[in-house]
C-alpha cells in the first residue's frame, strides 16, 4: 500500500496495533485540514503488527497522551522530506482531560465541568487511577 510522501509533517510510529484510531480521536486529528493517514496492522519487526499515523503538517502533540497510550511509540518529525527529529514519549505521572472516569459514584459523574485527572500509581503495570475516586482507568 502506498501513502504519499510527507514533506513537512509527523509520523507517529509503533502505535500498538488496534489503538491507532483511539489515538486519532484523542489527538483530534479529524479537525485538521491537512492529509492524515492511519495505517492499521502494518508489519513490525519488533512487535509483529503496529499502527502508524501520518500527518502532513507539523502540529503540537500531547506527549503525555502518547506516553499514556504506549511509551514505546516513536514520533518522527519530518521537514523538507527528511526526518529531523525522533522522540519517544515518557509515561506521564498525570494525565488530564483525556480519559474519563467511568465510576458512577465519582464526583466527576455529577459535576460536568470538573477536569478528569488520572495519576500513575503503578509504573511497572502502567496503572492509572482517578485522583478523585481511585478507580482504575480502563
Amino acid at each position, binding site marked *: 500500500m502506498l501513502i504519499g510522501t510527507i514533506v513537512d509533517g509527523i509520523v507517529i510510529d509503533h502505535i500498538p496495533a488496534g489503538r491507532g484510531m483511539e489515538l486519532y480521536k484523542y489527538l483530534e486529528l479529524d479537525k485538521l485540514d491537512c492529509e492524515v493517514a492511519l495505517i492499521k496492522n502494518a508489519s513490525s519487526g519488533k512487535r509483529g503488527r503496529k499502527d502508524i499515523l501520518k500527518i502532513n503538517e507539523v502540529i503540537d502533540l500531547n506527549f503525555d497522551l502518547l506516553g499514556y497510550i504506549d511509551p514505546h511509540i516513536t514520533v518522527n518529525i519530518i521537514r523538507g522530506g527528511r526526518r529531523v527529529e525522533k522522540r519517544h514519549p515518557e509515561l506521564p505521572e498525570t494525565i488530564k482531560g483525556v480519559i474519563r472516569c467511568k465510576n458512577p459514584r465519582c464526583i*466527576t459523574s455529577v459535576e460536568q465541568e*470538573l477536569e478528569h485527572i488520572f495519576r500513575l500509581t503503578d509504573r511497572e503495570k502502567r496503572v492509572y487511577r482517578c*485522583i478523585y475516586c*481511585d478507580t482504575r482507568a480502563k
Partner: protein
Amino acid sequence: MRSLIDIADLSVQEIDELIAKAEDIIANPDKYAEKCRRKKLATLFYEPSTRTRLSFESAMLELGGQVIGFSEAQSSSAAKGESVADTARVISCFADIIAMRHPKEGAPLVAAMNASIPVINAGDGGHNHPTQTLTDLLTIKREKGRLGHMTVGCCGDLKFGRTVHSLLGAMSRYEGVDFVLISPEELRIPEHVRSDILAARDIKYRETESLSEAMPELDVLYMTRVQRERFISEADYVRLKDTYILTPDKLVTAKKDLSILHPLPRVNEISVAIDSDPRACYFKQVLNGKYIRMALILKLLEVE
C-alpha cells in the same frame, strides 16, 4: 495549609503524633479548652451522618471554637446546583476549617483543591473516611498499648467496607501485624486492596469464611455492618446481612484481652449481650473519635 483527604496523606510519624496529642488531650482536657477560641469549623454534610457530624462539632466546641454548617444537601446551596468547588471557595470566607461529608467519591478532594482553608474528609461515599481510621487506631493503641505485633481480624462486609480498607492500609504500615479476613465469598476484600496494600507490602494475611474458626488467634476483632446502601440487589442484601453475627457463645474461644471494635452504627451484627463484656470497645471508640478529631483540628489549624 494542609487537608486530610485520605489516611495515606499522613505518614506513620504524623499518625503517631496525632495519637500522642489525643492521649494528651484525654489526660489534660483543660489545657486545650481555649485552644481554638475565635476559630470556626464548618461542617458541610451533604448526606446525613449524625455521629460523625456531632463528633466533629463537639471536638471543636471542646477546643473553645465555634461551629457553622449544614447537615443535608437540601438545606445547602447544592440544592440550587452550586458546585463543590464554589461552595468550598465561599465557605473559606466564613470559616477556618471544613469537615465535609459527601455521597460522591472525591468531593472533599475537589473542596480541598479550591478552598483556602484546610478540608477534612468526613466520608466520601464508599471511598475514604480517614478520621474513622484515626479513631480506630487511637482505640487500638489505647486498648493494646501498641499498634504493631498483633493479629487483627476484620469481619463482615470486606468488599464495600471502606473502614476496613483504610484500616488495612494504616495498620499494615506497622510492624508485625497479621490479618485474618473473615467474610462470605461475595463480600471478600476487593482485588485492588489485595494487590495495592497486602501484596505490595508483603503483609501476612489469610481469608476464611468462619468467624468461630478465626476467633482464638485474634487480638483485635473489627466487625462491620453489611450496608444496605452498598448493594444493587435487595435480595443479595437480605441473603447476606445476617451471615456474621457476634454472640456471646462465639466469644468462648476468644482471648481474654480481645478488643472488639465496630465503626457503628450496628444493625444486628453484634448482639447487645456483648455490650457488657469488657472486651467490647465500640462505645469507647466513639469517644476516642472526638479526641482524635480534636487533635486533627489542632494540627491542621497549626495550633500548638
